[in-house]
């Protein structure tokens, strides 16, 4: 496989990773606040957590395949920007989930 094609696939994979992490964060927070979404995950995938895992994997794989099939920009500078975006989305995701579950566990009264 040519280096340019490899770079495209990796760039697609990183883009898929960004979507994957954002998706898990959004599905988790919104799903807990809006029960029909969590119920849909349960009904469709037998368990909400399995649903989030499946959808996050699909996003990652589709990103890699998309990068290989379509003419995604395969420059190293693009990889650098995508990696930075991934790091930012990951940090936001970590903070959002920790704060959300801290709020749910210690501050809110159900």
């Amino acid at each position, binding site marked *: 496989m040519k280096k340019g094609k*490899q*770079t495209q*696939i*990796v760039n697609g*994979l*990183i883009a898929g*990773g960004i979507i*994957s*992490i954002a998706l*898990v964060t959004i599905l*988790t927070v919104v799903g807990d606040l809006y029960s029909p979404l969590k119920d849909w995950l349960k009904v469709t995938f*037998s*368990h909400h*957590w*399995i649903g*989030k*895992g499946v959808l*996050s994997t699909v996003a*990652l794989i589709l990103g890699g395949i998309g990068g290989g099939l379509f003419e995604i920009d395969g420059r*190293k500078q693009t*990889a*650098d920007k995508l*990696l*930075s975006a*991934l*790091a930012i989305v*990951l*940090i936001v*995701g*970590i903070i959002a*989930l*920790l704060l959300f*579950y*801290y709020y*749910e*566990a*210690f501050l809110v009264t159900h």
Partner: protein
Amino acid sequence: MLTLTQTLILHVLTGLIGVMASYTVLMNLLGKRFSLKLLKISSVAAAVLYVISWLTGGYYYVIRYGVEVKPVIKAGDYPWAHSFFTEAKEHLFLFMPVVAIIVAAVVFLYGDTLNTTRSVKRTTTLLAFLVVLIGTFVTVSGIIISGSVR
């Protein structure tokens, strides 16, 4: 076929060794000179081990934890062990295999030029650090959750 207890042991072991592999990746990336072979082996090992830990932990979580363990914790003295630590652990863990796979892909593609492409190396190092950070939180959470059942 593994029993549920053996599945849990496999989940813990693969997760722990995975974090050690990610730590090896981080330490290698932090150094001015690194072993590309070790970097490739440890990054792939981390990704593979997290996937195994994910599948085994997920199986245990769905089959036993939710049915038998969770009600005991929620009725006990430390219900926050589930509502904070289990909930945060199970969801933050979902980030780990994804990022570990991407770190391994970047190491394989740019490994031989990482020292000359400083920005890619810096961001990959940050990602490896975040995986180790999540891994440490997940490990400590596991200890807290296990302790709260007793």
